[in-house]
Protein backbone atom coordinates (compact mmCIF):
# COMPACT_ATOMS: atom_id res chain seq x y z
CA UNK A 1 0.00 0.00 0.00
CA UNK A 2 1.21 3.45 -0.92
CA UNK A 3 0.84 5.32 2.36
CA UNK A 4 2.36 8.48 1.02
CA UNK A 5 -0.27 8.62 -1.72
CA UNK A 6 -3.12 7.86 0.68
CA UNK A 7 -1.86 10.52 3.07
CA UNK A 8 -1.70 13.05 0.24
CA UNK A 9 -5.17 12.06 -1.01
CA UNK A 10 -6.64 12.34 2.47
CA UNK A 11 -5.18 15.80 2.84
CA UNK A 12 -6.70 16.94 -0.43
CA UNK A 13 -10.08 15.40 0.31
CA UNK A 14 -10.21 16.76 3.86
CA UNK A 15 -9.78 20.23 2.43
CA UNK A 16 -13.14 19.69 0.69
CA UNK A 17 -14.93 18.62 3.88
CA UNK A 18 -15.97 22.18 4.78
CA UNK A 19 -17.75 22.39 1.41
CA UNK A 20 -19.58 19.09 2.08
CA UNK A 21 -20.52 20.25 5.57
CA UNK A 22 -21.67 23.61 4.23
CA UNK A 23 -23.98 21.91 1.74
CA UNK A 24 -25.21 19.62 4.47
CA UNK A 25 -25.93 22.16 7.20
CA UNK A 26 -27.48 24.76 4.92
CA UNK A 27 -29.74 22.29 3.15
CA UNK A 28 -30.79 20.39 6.28
CA UNK A 29 -31.61 23.55 8.22
CA UNK A 30 -33.47 25.35 5.45
CA UNK A 31 -35.09 22.09 4.30
CA UNK A 32 -36.18 21.42 7.88
CA UNK A 33 -37.84 24.82 8.13
CA UNK A 34 -39.51 24.35 4.76
CA UNK A 35 -40.71 20.92 5.94
CA UNK A 36 -42.44 22.57 8.91
CA UNK A 37 -44.28 24.84 6.50
CA UNK A 38 -45.19 21.93 4.22
CA UNK A 39 -46.43 19.75 7.06
CA UNK A 40 -48.47 22.66 8.40
CA UNK A 41 -50.10 22.92 4.96
CA UNK A 42 -50.44 19.14 4.71
CA UNK A 43 -52.51 18.85 7.88
CA UNK A 44 -54.47 22.07 7.28
CA UNK A 45 -58.21 21.82 6.86
CA UNK A 46 -58.05 24.00 3.75
CA UNK A 47 -58.06 21.58 0.77
CA UNK A 48 -56.00 23.92 -1.42
CA UNK A 49 -53.17 23.97 1.12
CA UNK A 50 -53.27 20.27 1.88
CA UNK A 51 -53.44 19.27 -1.78
CA UNK A 52 -50.58 21.58 -2.63
CA UNK A 53 -48.53 19.95 0.14
CA UNK A 54 -49.49 16.46 -1.05
CA UNK A 55 -48.40 17.38 -4.57
CA UNK A 56 -45.14 18.87 -3.32
CA UNK A 57 -44.31 15.77 -1.29
CA UNK A 58 -45.18 13.50 -4.20
CA UNK A 59 -43.03 15.39 -6.69
CA UNK A 60 -39.94 15.69 -4.50
CA UNK A 61 -40.07 12.17 -3.14
CA UNK A 62 -41.12 10.63 -6.42
CA UNK A 63 -38.40 11.95 -8.74
CA UNK A 64 -34.62 11.43 -8.57
CA UNK A 65 -32.74 14.08 -6.63
CA UNK A 66 -30.12 14.20 -9.38
CA UNK A 67 -32.74 15.22 -11.94
CA UNK A 68 -34.15 17.81 -9.54
CA UNK A 69 -30.66 19.21 -9.15
CA UNK A 70 -30.05 19.34 -12.91
CA UNK A 71 -33.42 21.04 -13.40
CA UNK A 72 -32.53 23.69 -10.84
CA UNK A 73 -29.01 24.15 -12.18
CA UNK A 74 -29.72 24.17 -15.92
CA UNK A 75 -33.41 24.98 -15.85
CA UNK A 76 -33.83 28.11 -13.72
CA UNK A 77 -31.96 30.29 -16.20
CA UNK A 78 -34.55 29.48 -18.86
CA UNK A 79 -37.11 31.59 -17.04
CA UNK A 80 -36.77 35.24 -17.94
CA UNK A 81 -38.28 36.44 -14.68
CA UNK A 82 -35.60 34.57 -12.78
CA UNK A 83 -32.78 35.38 -15.13
CA UNK A 84 -33.46 39.10 -14.92
CA UNK A 85 -34.39 39.19 -11.23
CA UNK A 86 -32.10 40.42 -8.48
CA UNK A 87 -31.74 36.78 -7.35
CA UNK A 88 -29.95 35.66 -10.49
CA UNK A 89 -26.41 36.40 -9.24
CA UNK A 90 -27.10 33.91 -6.45
CA UNK A 91 -29.12 31.36 -8.37
CA UNK A 92 -26.48 31.02 -11.01
CA UNK A 93 -23.96 29.81 -8.40
CA UNK A 94 -23.60 26.00 -8.45
CA UNK A 95 -23.35 25.94 -4.65
CA UNK A 96 -26.64 27.80 -4.27
CA UNK A 97 -28.35 25.52 -6.80
CA UNK A 98 -27.10 22.45 -4.97
CA UNK A 99 -28.27 23.71 -1.57
CA UNK A 100 -31.61 24.72 -3.05
CA UNK A 101 -32.34 21.35 -4.62
CA UNK A 102 -31.08 19.40 -1.59
CA UNK A 103 -33.29 21.52 0.67
CA UNK A 104 -36.36 21.20 -1.56
CA UNK A 105 -35.95 17.45 -1.65
CA UNK A 106 -35.31 16.86 2.05
CA UNK A 107 -38.29 19.10 2.84
CA UNK A 108 -40.55 16.61 1.06
CA UNK A 109 -39.20 13.63 2.99
CA UNK A 110 -39.00 15.46 6.31
CA UNK A 111 -42.56 16.74 5.99
CA UNK A 112 -43.81 13.16 5.79
CA UNK A 113 -41.61 12.16 8.74
CA UNK A 114 -42.93 15.06 10.81
CA UNK A 115 -46.49 14.19 9.83
CA UNK A 116 -45.91 10.68 11.13
CA UNK A 117 -44.74 12.24 14.40
CA UNK A 118 -47.85 14.41 14.56
CA UNK A 119 -50.12 11.43 14.06
CA UNK A 120 -48.48 9.72 17.01
CA UNK A 121 -49.44 12.52 19.43
CA UNK A 122 -52.21 11.11 21.64
CA UNK A 123 -55.47 13.01 21.15
CA UNK A 124 -56.08 12.78 24.89
CA UNK A 125 -52.96 14.76 25.70
CA UNK A 126 -54.02 17.46 23.25
CA UNK A 127 -57.45 17.52 24.84
CA UNK A 128 -55.93 17.86 28.30
CA UNK A 129 -54.01 20.89 27.05
CA UNK A 130 -57.13 22.42 25.56
CA UNK A 131 -58.98 21.83 28.81
CA UNK A 132 -56.65 24.19 30.67
CA UNK A 133 -57.06 26.88 28.02
CA UNK A 134 -54.20 26.20 25.62
CA UNK A 135 -54.76 26.70 21.93
CA UNK A 136 -53.08 27.77 18.72
CA UNK A 137 -49.34 28.29 18.67
CA UNK A 138 -48.94 27.81 22.44
CA UNK A 139 -50.49 24.34 22.15
CA UNK A 140 -48.18 23.46 19.25
CA UNK A 141 -45.09 24.85 20.95
CA UNK A 142 -45.63 23.30 24.37
CA UNK A 143 -47.43 20.00 23.74
CA UNK A 144 -47.92 18.89 20.13
CA UNK A 145 -44.49 19.90 18.81
CA UNK A 146 -42.37 18.34 21.57
CA UNK A 147 -44.30 15.06 21.53
CA UNK A 148 -44.33 14.86 17.72
CA UNK A 149 -40.61 15.65 17.51
CA UNK A 150 -39.78 12.82 19.90
CA UNK A 151 -41.77 10.38 17.79
CA UNK A 152 -40.21 11.64 14.55
CA UNK A 153 -36.61 11.64 15.73
CA UNK A 154 -35.55 8.07 14.79
CA UNK A 155 -36.86 8.40 11.23
CA UNK A 156 -35.45 11.91 10.98
CA UNK A 157 -31.95 10.66 11.92
CA UNK A 158 -32.09 8.36 8.93
CA UNK A 159 -33.09 11.26 6.68
CA UNK A 160 -30.17 13.31 7.97
CA UNK A 161 -27.69 10.53 7.23
CA UNK A 162 -29.17 10.26 3.75
CA UNK A 163 -28.58 13.97 3.31
CA UNK A 164 -24.87 13.67 4.12
CA UNK A 165 -24.58 11.14 1.32
CA UNK A 166 -26.78 13.15 -1.04
CA UNK A 167 -24.36 16.08 -0.93
CA UNK A 168 -22.14 13.92 -3.19
CA UNK A 169 -24.53 14.64 -6.06
CA UNK A 170 -23.50 18.29 -5.94
CA UNK A 171 -20.26 17.24 -7.64
CA UNK A 172 -22.32 16.77 -10.82
CA UNK A 173 -23.23 20.44 -10.89
CA UNK A 174 -19.55 21.39 -10.39
CA UNK A 175 -19.49 21.97 -6.64
CA UNK A 176 -16.09 20.90 -5.31
CA UNK A 177 -17.13 18.91 -2.31
CA UNK A 178 -15.49 15.63 -1.23
CA UNK A 179 -16.80 13.43 -4.05
CA UNK A 180 -16.13 16.06 -6.70
CA UNK A 181 -12.58 16.51 -5.52
CA UNK A 182 -12.16 12.73 -5.41
CA UNK A 183 -13.22 12.43 -9.04
CA UNK A 184 -10.83 15.17 -10.04
CA UNK A 185 -7.99 13.35 -8.25
CA UNK A 186 -8.89 10.14 -10.07
CA UNK A 187 -8.86 11.81 -13.43
CA UNK A 188 -5.38 13.09 -12.62
CA UNK A 189 -3.93 9.91 -11.07
CA UNK A 190 -6.10 7.03 -12.39
CA UNK A 191 -5.99 5.46 -8.90
CA UNK A 192 -9.73 4.89 -8.50
CA UNK A 193 -9.67 2.45 -5.56
CA UNK A 194 -7.47 4.37 -3.15
CA UNK A 195 -9.15 7.70 -3.77
CA UNK A 196 -12.71 6.45 -3.48
CA UNK A 197 -11.83 4.42 -0.38
CA UNK A 198 -10.47 7.56 1.25
CA UNK A 199 -13.67 9.42 0.32
CA UNK A 200 -15.82 6.61 1.72
CA UNK A 201 -13.90 6.73 5.00
CA UNK A 202 -14.56 10.45 5.26
CA UNK A 203 -18.32 10.00 4.75
CA UNK A 204 -18.36 7.15 7.27
CA UNK A 205 -16.63 9.26 9.91
CA UNK A 206 -18.99 12.19 9.29
CA UNK A 207 -22.05 9.99 9.57
CA UNK A 208 -20.69 8.25 12.63
CA UNK A 209 -20.37 11.61 14.38
CA UNK A 210 -23.80 12.77 13.26
CA UNK A 211 -25.45 9.52 14.35
CA UNK A 212 -23.76 9.77 17.74
CA UNK A 213 -25.12 13.28 18.17
CA UNK A 214 -28.62 12.18 17.16
CA UNK A 215 -28.48 9.20 19.52
CA UNK A 216 -27.47 11.50 22.34
CA UNK A 217 -30.36 13.84 21.56
CA UNK A 218 -32.77 10.92 21.43
CA UNK A 219 -31.48 9.65 24.76
CA UNK A 220 -31.91 13.01 26.42
CA UNK A 221 -35.46 13.38 25.09
CA UNK A 222 -36.72 9.94 26.06
CA UNK A 223 -36.40 9.73 29.85
CA UNK A 224 -40.14 9.25 30.06
CA UNK A 225 -40.09 6.18 27.83
CA UNK A 226 -37.11 4.53 29.49
CA UNK A 227 -38.91 4.92 32.77
CA UNK A 228 -41.87 3.05 31.34
CA UNK A 229 -39.72 0.23 30.04
CA UNK A 230 -37.71 -0.23 33.22
CA UNK A 231 -40.94 -0.79 35.15
CA UNK A 232 -41.59 -3.94 33.18
CA UNK A 233 -40.63 -7.15 35.00
Amino acid at each position, binding site marked *: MDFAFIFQTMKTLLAAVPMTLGLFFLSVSSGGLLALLIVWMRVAKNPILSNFAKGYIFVFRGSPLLIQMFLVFYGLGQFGFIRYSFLWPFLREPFVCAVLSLALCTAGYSAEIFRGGLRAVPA*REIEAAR*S*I*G*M*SGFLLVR*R*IIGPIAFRHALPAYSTEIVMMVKSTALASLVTVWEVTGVAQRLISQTYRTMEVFLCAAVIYLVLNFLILQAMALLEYRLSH*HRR*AAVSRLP
Partner: protein
Amino acid sequence: MVHEHSSDPSTATVNRLSVRNIRKKFGSLEVLRGISLEADDGDVISILGSSGSGKSTFLRCINLLEIADEGEIWVDGEHINMVKKHGKNMPASSKQVDHIRAELGMVFQSFNLWSHMTILQNVIEGPVHVLKRPRAECIAEAEALLEKVGIAEKRHAYPAHLSGGQQQRAAIARALAMRPKVMLFDEPTSALDPELVGEVLRVMRALAEEGMTMLVVTHEMNFARDVSNRVVFMREGQIDCTGAPPEMFSGESSPAFRQFIGNFRG
Protein backbone atom coordinates in the same frame (compact mmCIF):
# COMPACT_ATOMS: atom_id res chain seq x y z
CA MET B 1 -89.23 14.94 38.85
CA VAL B 2 -87.80 16.76 35.88
CA HIS B 3 -85.52 19.56 36.93
CA GLU B 4 -87.14 22.99 36.60
CA HIS B 5 -85.58 26.41 36.66
CA SER B 6 -87.04 29.58 37.99
CA SER B 7 -84.08 31.78 38.86
CA ASP B 8 -82.45 33.83 36.14
CA PRO B 9 -78.69 33.67 36.51
CA SER B 10 -78.30 37.23 35.25
CA THR B 11 -80.40 38.69 38.07
CA ALA B 12 -80.19 36.25 40.98
CA THR B 13 -77.06 35.74 43.05
CA VAL B 14 -74.32 34.62 40.72
CA ASN B 15 -74.02 30.88 40.34
CA ARG B 16 -70.63 29.31 39.90
CA LEU B 17 -72.06 27.46 36.97
CA SER B 18 -75.35 27.74 35.21
CA VAL B 19 -76.46 25.67 32.27
CA ARG B 20 -79.74 26.28 30.53
CA ASN B 21 -81.42 23.86 28.15
CA ILE B 22 -78.37 22.33 26.50
CA ARG B 23 -78.95 20.20 23.44
CA LYS B 24 -76.42 18.21 21.46
CA LYS B 25 -76.69 15.90 18.49
CA PHE B 26 -74.03 13.69 16.94
CA GLY B 27 -75.36 13.24 13.43
CA SER B 28 -78.89 12.07 13.93
CA LEU B 29 -78.23 10.78 17.45
CA GLU B 30 -79.67 13.17 20.01
CA VAL B 31 -77.29 12.80 22.96
CA LEU B 32 -78.40 15.74 25.11
CA ARG B 33 -82.06 16.68 24.97
CA GLY B 34 -82.41 19.82 27.01
CA ILE B 35 -80.31 19.77 30.16
CA SER B 36 -80.35 22.54 32.73
CA LEU B 37 -78.28 22.68 35.88
CA GLU B 38 -77.10 25.22 38.40
CA ALA B 39 -74.22 24.95 40.80
CA ASP B 40 -73.75 27.40 43.65
CA ASP B 41 -70.48 28.01 45.39
CA GLY B 42 -69.43 24.84 47.20
CA ASP B 43 -71.98 22.58 45.56
CA VAL B 44 -70.84 19.03 44.93
CA ILE B 45 -73.10 17.52 42.32
CA SER B 46 -72.85 13.85 41.43
CA ILE B 47 -74.05 12.96 37.96
CA LEU B 48 -75.18 9.37 37.63
CA GLY B 49 -76.60 7.49 34.69
CA SER B 50 -76.09 4.41 32.64
CA SER B 51 -73.56 4.17 29.83
CA GLY B 52 -74.48 6.27 26.83
CA SER B 53 -76.87 8.52 28.72
CA GLY B 54 -74.75 11.55 27.75
CA LYS B 55 -72.87 12.28 31.00
CA SER B 56 -69.47 12.79 29.39
CA THR B 57 -70.95 14.79 26.55
CA PHE B 58 -72.62 17.05 29.10
CA LEU B 59 -69.33 17.79 30.91
CA ARG B 60 -67.54 18.26 27.60
CA CYS B 61 -70.16 20.77 26.48
CA ILE B 62 -69.63 22.77 29.67
CA ASN B 63 -65.92 23.25 29.07
CA LEU B 64 -66.46 23.59 25.32
CA LEU B 65 -64.58 20.48 24.24
CA GLU B 66 -67.87 19.87 22.47
CA ILE B 67 -70.08 22.71 21.34
CA ALA B 68 -73.74 22.34 22.26
CA ASP B 69 -76.20 22.89 19.40
CA GLU B 70 -78.49 24.89 21.64
CA GLY B 71 -78.56 26.30 25.14
CA GLU B 72 -76.81 28.82 27.33
CA ILE B 73 -73.89 28.48 29.72
CA TRP B 74 -72.68 30.89 32.38
CA VAL B 75 -69.44 30.33 34.27
CA ASP B 76 -69.16 32.43 37.40
CA GLY B 77 -71.73 34.82 35.93
CA GLU B 78 -69.98 35.13 32.59
CA HIS B 79 -72.15 34.18 29.65
CA ILE B 80 -70.47 32.12 26.92
CA ASN B 81 -71.20 33.87 23.66
CA MET B 82 -72.24 31.79 20.70
CA VAL B 83 -72.88 32.63 17.08
CA LYS B 84 -74.51 30.64 14.29
CA LYS B 85 -72.13 29.80 11.46
CA HIS B 86 -73.57 27.87 8.51
CA GLY B 87 -76.47 26.99 10.81
CA LYS B 88 -74.11 25.53 13.43
CA ASN B 89 -73.55 26.90 16.91
CA MET B 90 -69.98 28.18 17.34
CA PRO B 91 -68.21 30.06 20.13
CA ALA B 92 -68.10 33.73 19.22
CA SER B 93 -64.58 34.19 20.53
CA SER B 94 -61.81 31.62 20.79
CA LYS B 95 -60.23 33.87 23.42
CA GLN B 96 -63.29 33.45 25.60
CA VAL B 97 -63.17 29.69 25.04
CA ASP B 98 -59.59 29.55 26.37
CA HIS B 99 -60.47 31.82 29.26
CA ILE B 100 -63.52 29.75 30.24
CA ARG B 101 -61.58 26.50 29.99
CA ALA B 102 -58.89 27.95 32.23
CA GLU B 103 -61.57 28.59 34.85
CA LEU B 104 -62.94 25.04 34.69
CA GLY B 105 -60.71 22.23 35.92
CA MET B 106 -61.24 18.98 34.02
CA VAL B 107 -60.24 15.56 35.28
CA PHE B 108 -60.46 12.75 32.74
CA GLN B 109 -61.14 9.08 33.19
CA SER B 110 -57.78 8.20 31.61
CA PHE B 111 -55.74 10.93 33.43
CA ASN B 112 -54.28 12.34 30.18
CA LEU B 113 -51.08 13.58 31.76
CA TRP B 114 -48.45 14.83 29.30
CA SER B 115 -46.13 11.86 29.01
CA HIS B 116 -43.00 13.81 28.09
CA MET B 117 -43.11 15.99 31.21
CA THR B 118 -42.43 15.18 34.83
CA ILE B 119 -45.28 15.41 37.31
CA LEU B 120 -44.11 18.81 38.51
CA GLN B 121 -43.79 20.06 34.93
CA ASN B 122 -47.32 18.81 34.25
CA VAL B 123 -48.65 20.78 37.20
CA ILE B 124 -46.87 24.08 36.48
CA GLU B 125 -47.49 23.98 32.72
CA GLY B 126 -50.85 25.76 32.85
CA PRO B 127 -50.04 28.40 35.48
CA VAL B 128 -46.74 29.31 33.80
CA HIS B 129 -47.74 29.23 30.14
CA VAL B 130 -51.48 29.90 30.14
CA LEU B 131 -51.88 32.16 33.17
CA LYS B 132 -48.35 33.56 32.71
CA ARG B 133 -47.64 33.66 36.41
CA PRO B 134 -44.07 33.80 37.77
CA ARG B 135 -42.42 30.42 37.54
CA ALA B 136 -41.00 30.30 41.06
CA GLU B 137 -44.39 31.07 42.55
CA CYS B 138 -46.00 28.35 40.41
CA ILE B 139 -43.43 25.77 41.50
CA ALA B 140 -44.01 26.55 45.17
CA GLU B 141 -47.76 26.28 44.72
CA ALA B 142 -47.44 23.09 42.66
CA GLU B 143 -45.31 21.46 45.35
CA ALA B 144 -47.91 22.34 47.95
CA LEU B 145 -50.63 20.84 45.75
CA LEU B 146 -48.64 17.65 45.19
CA GLU B 147 -48.14 17.45 48.94
CA LYS B 148 -51.88 17.81 49.39
CA VAL B 149 -52.74 14.99 46.98
CA GLY B 150 -49.99 12.90 48.57
CA ILE B 151 -47.47 12.47 45.76
CA ALA B 152 -44.88 15.13 46.59
CA GLU B 153 -42.10 12.53 46.47
CA LYS B 154 -43.01 11.73 42.85
CA ARG B 155 -42.66 15.28 41.55
CA HIS B 156 -39.63 14.54 39.39
CA ALA B 157 -40.99 11.24 38.07
CA TYR B 158 -42.63 10.87 34.66
CA PRO B 159 -46.26 9.77 34.40
CA ALA B 160 -45.20 6.31 33.22
CA HIS B 161 -43.46 5.83 36.60
CA LEU B 162 -46.70 6.19 38.51
CA SER B 163 -49.60 3.93 39.36
CA GLY B 164 -53.02 4.85 38.00
CA GLY B 165 -54.13 6.26 41.34
CA GLN B 166 -51.03 8.43 41.56
CA GLN B 167 -51.48 9.60 37.98
CA GLN B 168 -55.07 10.59 38.66
CA ARG B 169 -54.04 12.49 41.78
CA ALA B 170 -51.39 14.27 39.72
CA ALA B 171 -54.06 15.12 37.15
CA ILE B 172 -56.23 16.58 39.92
CA ALA B 173 -53.27 18.67 41.11
CA ARG B 174 -52.70 19.83 37.53
CA ALA B 175 -56.31 20.98 37.28
CA LEU B 176 -56.21 22.65 40.71
CA ALA B 177 -53.05 24.55 39.80
CA MET B 178 -55.19 26.65 37.46
CA ARG B 179 -57.20 27.82 40.51
CA PRO B 180 -60.45 26.79 38.82
CA LYS B 181 -63.86 28.14 39.75
CA VAL B 182 -65.46 24.75 39.16
CA MET B 183 -63.95 21.27 38.90
CA LEU B 184 -65.41 18.78 36.41
CA PHE B 185 -64.66 15.10 36.98
CA ASP B 186 -65.51 12.53 34.29
CA GLU B 187 -65.49 9.12 35.94
CA PRO B 188 -62.18 9.81 37.68
CA THR B 189 -61.94 6.36 39.22
CA SER B 190 -63.37 4.16 36.48
CA ALA B 191 -59.98 3.31 34.95
CA LEU B 192 -58.44 2.38 38.29
CA ASP B 193 -57.84 -0.96 39.95
CA PRO B 194 -60.28 -1.31 42.86
CA GLU B 195 -57.57 -0.92 45.50
CA LEU B 196 -56.54 2.45 44.00
CA VAL B 197 -60.02 3.98 43.93
CA GLY B 198 -59.98 4.96 47.60
CA GLU B 199 -56.92 7.21 47.43
CA VAL B 200 -58.47 9.28 44.62
CA LEU B 201 -61.86 9.51 46.31
CA ARG B 202 -60.15 10.70 49.51
CA VAL B 203 -58.55 13.58 47.61
CA MET B 204 -61.91 14.48 46.06
CA ARG B 205 -63.67 14.32 49.40
CA ALA B 206 -61.08 16.66 50.91
CA LEU B 207 -61.64 19.09 48.04
CA ALA B 208 -65.39 18.99 48.60
CA GLU B 209 -64.89 19.70 52.30
CA GLU B 210 -62.78 22.73 51.41
CA GLY B 211 -65.74 24.14 49.52
CA MET B 212 -64.67 23.49 45.94
CA THR B 213 -67.59 23.55 43.51
CA MET B 214 -67.59 20.17 41.78
CA LEU B 215 -69.50 18.28 39.10
CA VAL B 216 -68.65 14.62 39.35
CA VAL B 217 -69.72 11.98 36.85
CA THR B 218 -69.28 8.77 38.77
CA HIS B 219 -70.41 5.24 39.36
CA GLU B 220 -69.28 5.41 43.01
CA MET B 221 -72.60 5.32 44.86
CA ASN B 222 -70.98 5.88 48.23
CA PHE B 223 -69.34 9.06 47.01
CA ALA B 224 -72.62 10.27 45.53
CA ARG B 225 -74.49 9.58 48.75
CA ASP B 226 -71.93 10.70 51.33
CA VAL B 227 -69.98 13.50 49.73
CA SER B 228 -72.26 15.27 47.28
CA ASN B 229 -75.07 17.57 48.30
CA ARG B 230 -77.00 16.91 45.10
CA VAL B 231 -77.45 13.94 42.84
CA VAL B 232 -78.47 14.24 39.21
CA PHE B 233 -79.66 11.15 37.39
CA MET B 234 -79.36 11.31 33.62
CA ARG B 235 -81.28 9.10 31.29
CA GLU B 236 -81.40 9.24 27.51
CA GLY B 237 -79.97 12.74 27.34
CA GLN B 238 -82.26 14.27 29.92
CA ILE B 239 -82.25 14.80 33.66
CA ASP B 240 -84.59 12.06 34.82
CA CYS B 241 -84.57 13.20 38.43
CA THR B 242 -82.46 15.18 40.85
CA GLY B 243 -82.41 15.93 44.53
CA ALA B 244 -80.43 15.75 47.75
CA PRO B 245 -78.86 12.32 48.35
CA PRO B 246 -81.01 11.40 51.36
CA GLU B 247 -84.25 11.74 49.36
CA MET B 248 -82.79 10.25 46.20
CA PHE B 249 -81.42 7.18 47.93
CA SER B 250 -84.37 6.67 50.27
CA GLY B 251 -86.73 5.91 47.44
CA GLU B 252 -88.34 9.28 46.75
CA SER B 253 -86.88 9.22 43.26
CA SER B 254 -88.02 7.99 39.87
CA PRO B 255 -88.58 4.31 39.09
CA ALA B 256 -85.72 4.42 36.60
CA PHE B 257 -83.31 5.67 39.27
CA ARG B 258 -84.45 3.03 41.74
CA GLN B 259 -83.80 0.41 39.11
CA PHE B 260 -80.42 1.97 38.32
CA ILE B 261 -79.20 1.85 41.92
CA GLY B 262 -80.78 -1.55 42.32
CA ASN B 263 -78.37 -2.83 39.66
CA PHE B 264 -75.47 -1.58 41.77
CA ARG B 265 -76.66 -3.21 44.96
CA GLY B 266 -77.50 -6.48 43.21
